């Protein structure tokens, strides 16, 4: 074999040996331990720290909120619908890279600086699950936020930890009362409001059927106390106990006063009548968009006009209604009252 061939082979063998040596030095000892990969990688990946901590972690400090939640609709294990703390509050044990959960006034880490991430904008947060959109299954509770609460924060009426536990007017609405017992106490009501609370032609009282229970109860209480001034109602209400009021309110609320079809055409009509601002709470057809507001169904034009004048004049007072009523001139008031005055019970 000529010398140059021998040397060529030596060079090639040398390169091969160097390659084998480097390979033996470089390859991780745990490679092939469980298969064709670095065995140590498995434990390394498993070592990462979890960021979402689970409800028990939150409960350890926020027992009261946890208790409210655990008795509310957001904890419904029977339907597997469990909205855990960290769904709305963000991961308890880690960074919040997108700042998706932070209240502007709280710190970025919890509980490192003992500040809880509280969602600031509940309309933005709650609608993530509860806005009505195409594709969402019917079982999911959904609202059209434009028609539900006039853009007000959900937390104004709902306790987010137990959303069917209401605050304010809604809390009263949810309180109760016995409609059957209430019916027996309505003898004094029927002459003016009709036996089922539907104010037929010629009756002087407004329609009570299907009216918001909390509104009815609050109205009776206001008449009794004199906060709302009406000589007939003062006489009737002064003999009622608190439970009477609840029962009567429950009875009339349970009676039917169905609305005509609502929808886009109705909304356009409301707008035309200058009642667009009313519609966001009272609905375009008089059916309220939320349980906090009274129904306008079946009310006479005269009654509505009187009510608006009372708000404007200060005989009745409500944070929203007083302002709206004052903003209307006589013609506007008449027009709006006429519009809703046409919404009779069906």
């Amino acid at each position, binding site marked *: 074999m000529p010398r*140059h061939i021998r*040397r*060529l082979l030596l060079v090639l063998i040398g390169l091969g040996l160097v390659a084998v040596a480097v*390979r033996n030095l*470089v390859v991780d000892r745990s490679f092939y331990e469980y298969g064709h990969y670095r065995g140590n990688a498995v434990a390394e990946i498993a070592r990462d720290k979890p960021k979402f901590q689970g409800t028990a972690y939150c409960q350890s400090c926020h027992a009261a909120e946890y208790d409210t939640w655990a008795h509310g609709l957001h904890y419904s294990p029977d339907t597997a619908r469990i909205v855990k703390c960290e769904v709305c509050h963000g991961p308890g044990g880690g960074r919040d890279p997108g700042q998706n959960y932070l209240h502007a006034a709280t710190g970025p880490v919890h509980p490192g600086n003992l500040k809880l991430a509280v969602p600031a904008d509940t309309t933005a947060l709650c609608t993530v699950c509860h806005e009505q959109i195409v594709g969402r299954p019917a079982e999911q509770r959904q609202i059209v936020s434009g028609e539900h609460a006039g853009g007000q924060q959900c937390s104004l009426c709902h306790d987010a930890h137990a959303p069917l536990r209401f605050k304010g007017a809604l809390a009263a609405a949810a309180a109760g009362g016995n409609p059957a017992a209430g019916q027996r106490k309505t003898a004094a009501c029927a002459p003016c409001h009709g036996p089922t609370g539907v104010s037929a032609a010629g009756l002087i009282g407004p329609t009570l059927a299907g009216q918001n229970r909390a509104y009815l109860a609050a109205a009776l209480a206001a008449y009794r106390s004199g906060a709302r001034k009406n000589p007939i109602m003062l006489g009737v209400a002064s003999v009622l106990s608190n439970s009477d009021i609840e029962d009567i309110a429950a009875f009339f609320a349970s009676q039917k006063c169905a609305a005509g079809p609502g929808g886009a055409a109705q909304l356009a009509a409301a707008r035309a009548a200058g009642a667009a601002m009313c519609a966001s709470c009272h609905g375009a057809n008089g059916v309220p968009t939320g349980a906090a507001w009274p129904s306008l169904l079946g009310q006479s034009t005269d009654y509505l006009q009187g009510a608006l004048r009372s708000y404007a004049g200060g005989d009745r007072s409500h944070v929203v209604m007083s302002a709206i009523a004052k903003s209307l001139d006589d013609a506007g008031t008449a027009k709006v009252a006429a519009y809703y005055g046409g919404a009779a019970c069906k």
Partner: protein
Amino acid sequence: MHPEFSAAPYIGYVYPNETVFPWGVLIVAYPYLTGLVAGAFTVSSLYQVFGLQRLRPVAHFALLTSLCCMIFVPTPLLLHLGHPERAFNAVFTPHWSSAMAMFGYFAGFYVLLLMVETWFVFRPYIVQQAQQRKDLLGRYYRLLSLGSYDLSEDALRVDRKWILALAIIGIPAAHGLHGYVGFLFGSLKSREWWSSDLMPVIFLFSAIISGVSLLTVLYVLSCKLRRIAVDVDCVKGLGYTVWGFLMFTLLLEGVEFGSLVYKGKEGIDMIMVFVTTRLVIPFFVLQIGVGAVTPILILSYMFWRGTAGRALVAGVTTSAALILLNVIMMRFNVVIGGQEISKTGVGLLSYPWVFLGREGVFAAASVLAAPMLLLLVMIRLLPPWHDPVNTPAH
């Protein structure tokens, strides 16, 4: 926010992660380069193994071209890798079920083979230079000679045997290397545009035509630069070679495309939209029309009419340049086109052109230009034009 990726616009529905193309134009350059290697090596083997005397003027030049291209084959891959410093992981712990794990071994073996064959072919020149030169370059040649200046008839006979053996081994190695690149794409069941058993063969044939064409262009160019007469017979030989392979390539591509359409599997609707809109210019006009049909017509006409002399050289060179366009468009339409069809089967993406940066057009162009620069240096160190001392084995 990282500006390091560009998101692709799309129509229909694509998976959210698909909007970032995994592979860009660098991966177009990669199969193009390996193709040139395989093609150029084919020319050299046609002379060394099959004794095609016509190709003798370009035989050694082909070998050098092949080597220069091969040296740069890993560069597009290394530039593309997220961690190029870990590239050897694929060699140290090759995962044999992966088509890509083979690359390190295929490429390593092939580079060695090319180097050794080149060494044997140019050994007489190396030895001669080692003995004559006293300067720094002399040291280089002396090192290359491995300290043996044996040019006896016995030694040269052994060399010729080695060259023949290496050239024979080189044929399956070069074609295996490139067929494997085709398999890299063809074996992916996730992409309808790539998933084809014909892919390795198509890649192989298009590789051959690209290599032969490159050689034709470079050879004619070098003759002009060196102000010597072009060997018309050699160019005619190259022309015949590329003509035959080109027709076969076109046939294969037609069969593949036809069967894709004919089978009409799930997602064909989107592919047809793709083919009839976005692919019209790059595929039908540039790749098929300008790049394949035109050179076939030119070559067929010239061979039929028996064109000779300068006209033949001009015709073959023009055809070769068009074929180079054909092959790079074919690589582009495979690599980029495959990724433009969404895996959802109901969406199409548009490749977002990137010019600067590690994976941009300029990087890819540099990768393609680099072997040519290396070749300029190489032909000075190891002049392939020298009347070879070795004669073919038979």
